[in-house]
């Protein structure tokens, strides 16, 4: 093993001249969402190499998923390795400011992806419009319920900026467009994992299960957890349920009408544009400060459209192998 690792180490250090080393730092590593971002980043690198610009992508997430301190350490360590640029999906819009600014002081530019960073020290912000995503969900649920009924929101986790925006977007749009719809619970958090989500969902449903007609969950793990809970008590399909982000199991549920809508982002594109933008900046070309990678509401109706399929099945294998 050790030998292999040595080889590993050397392999990386032997870099050709006129080449960029870009660190891409996700929030976590084990969700498909981040896989897509990784693939997108690699796609960009490959294309650029094709154009004669050597780009190597260092992919590295925080050791403990969703732990700000750990992500900071990852950024710092990349600074000390002297990479050429950092593409970062910050776990928090403030906590990551210091390391990013330190990076800039060390002459390393940063492109932010996925969720915002409250700093001017960044090159560009490449992300979904999460607020809009929440609004789409509200629209869908509202129309399904014909503007009346009781709805339940299972939040994701305290202090998570991007999901918070989705939740707010959802609530706001629901309030102004469908005042007749009552939001009977919106202060419960699903917690970081599917398991915590399922527990929370079970207990929530046990309490409100009889009354509600609609549910919204702001990310993959909470959606999956809620779905499992619904299936367990055999209510899946009997309440209108809109989720966020896509995985096989969720799409499956969409097919057999247990889910009635999925707000889907374009992580692949996010990773791609993230690296692209970074390299463009490194080569002194102009870059725009805000790049929207788009969201889309996927339902049973538009599931089979090419656009949807492209979103749902990014060519992971092509790049991650």
């Amino acid at each position, binding site marked *: 093993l050790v030998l292999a690792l040595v080889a590993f180490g050397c392999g990386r250090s032997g870099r050709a001249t006129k080449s960029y080393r870009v660190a891409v730092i996700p929030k*976590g*590593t*084990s*969700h*498909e969402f981040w*896989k897509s971002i990784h693939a997108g980043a690699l796609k960009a690198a490959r294309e650029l190499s094709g154009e004669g610009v050597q780009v190597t992508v260092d992919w590295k997430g925080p050791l*403990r*998923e969703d732990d700000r301190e750990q992500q900071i350490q990852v950024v710092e360590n990349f600074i000390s390795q002297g990479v050429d640029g950092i593409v970062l999906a910050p776990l928090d819009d403030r906590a990551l400011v210091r390391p990013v600014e330190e990076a800039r002081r060390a002459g390393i530019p940063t492109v932010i992806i996925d969720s915002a960073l409250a700093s001017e020290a960044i090159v560009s912000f490449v992300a979904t419009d999460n607020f809009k995503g929440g609004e789409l969900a509200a629209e869908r649920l509202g129309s399904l319920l014909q503007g009346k009924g009781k709805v339940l929101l299972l939040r994701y986790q*305290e202090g998570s900026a991007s999901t918070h925006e989705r939740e707010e977007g959802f609530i706001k749009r629901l309030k102004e467009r469908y005042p007749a719809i009552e939001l009977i*619970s919106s*202060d*419960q*958090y699903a917690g970081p*994992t*599917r*398991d915590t989500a*399922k*527990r*929370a969902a*079970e*207990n*929530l449903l*046990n*309490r409100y299960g009889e009354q509600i007609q609609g549910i919204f969950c702001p990310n993959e793990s909470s959606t999956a957890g809620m779905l*499992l*809970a619904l299936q*367990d*008590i*055999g209510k899946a399909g009997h309440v209108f349920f809109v989720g966020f982000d896509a*995985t*096989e*199991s969720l799409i499956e549920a969409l097919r057999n009408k247990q889910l009635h809508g999925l707000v889907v982002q374009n992580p692949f594109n996010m990773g791609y544009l993230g690296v692209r933008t970074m390299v463009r900046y490194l080569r002194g070309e102009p870059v725009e400060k805000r790049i929207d990678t788009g969201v889309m509401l996927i339902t049973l109706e538009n599931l089979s459209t090419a656009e949807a399929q492209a979103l749902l099945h990014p060519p992971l294998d092509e790049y991650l192998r």
Partner: protein
Amino acid sequence: MEERDEISVVASEEALTRVSGPSWVRLWLGRVGPFLGLIFVLLVFTLLSADPAQYLSPRNLRIVAAQTVIIAVGAIGMTLIIVSGGIDLSVGSAIALTGVVTALGLRAGWAPSVAVLAGVLAGGLIGVINGLVITRLRVIPFIATLGMLGAARGIAKWLAAQQTVNVPETWVNELAVTFPARRWMFFAPGVWLALALAAIVAAILRNSVWGRRVFALGSNEAAARACGIDVENLKTSVYGLAGLFFGLAGVMQMSRLRQGDPTVAVGTELDVIAAVVIGGASLSGGEGSILGSMVGALIMALLRNGCQQMGWPNYVQEIIIGAIIVLAAVVDRLRHVRRLAET
């Protein structure tokens, strides 16, 4: 005289009956002893709850049961380890790893039973490795299992290629479901399985030679060795056996999530240990009972569930749960009135 006091909570039947105060109190305490904490928690929530009927409804009961089962199965194994004077921090990671193994097996199209067996055995293997590191390399359990906590988690992510592993529909998914398909079962098969295992292990721990040796080991290792007990192998067997249970817990976790998730069950070790300790086991070994641990696990689950039933915001839940864990322990002390009587 702490020395003497500690002894009052003993691995002998006497322990429960040695309580001062009027005899009827003693009798009562003796009976409900281990359940005091549980009763206390139930009471609190039934009183607080808007509609107690709903809180105590069989339906909610089943939800609690389903949520307990994983911790409970883990607690069975952990009880063995703690009674033997050890500790195991790698439970959470072991659960993740074994879950992933099972899921991979199922996805690879193995027979469900085979996949499940593989998962359980994987757990056993982890346990044996822990045991060997502790006995052969003479690393203290805390460090040895802390190492395993990292290693097992890593291996899980590696095997799962940092993905969650989705599994086909099999009976395994029904193992820990909240509401079993066959209504007459009332509880999920996993719950029944857990109960059965608990009963068996309790019997082993109480009445088998092996069990008594484990107690002896936990209460005085030097003496155990001087009595010709092969301490090294005994320890290894304890960790190995416990590992099997962690493996089973992993399988159930997998069944609950319908997927092998390498990032699941982070920090579960604390819940499991807490369950065992609330159940009256002593971290210095030689004390503890399966029944107690099961009750401990139940208490934890009831707390979580109860708080959410109340619809309190999460932070209130966390505060309350924290407080009640302590209170439960205090109430549990009533069982050992002698302790208070002295010093």
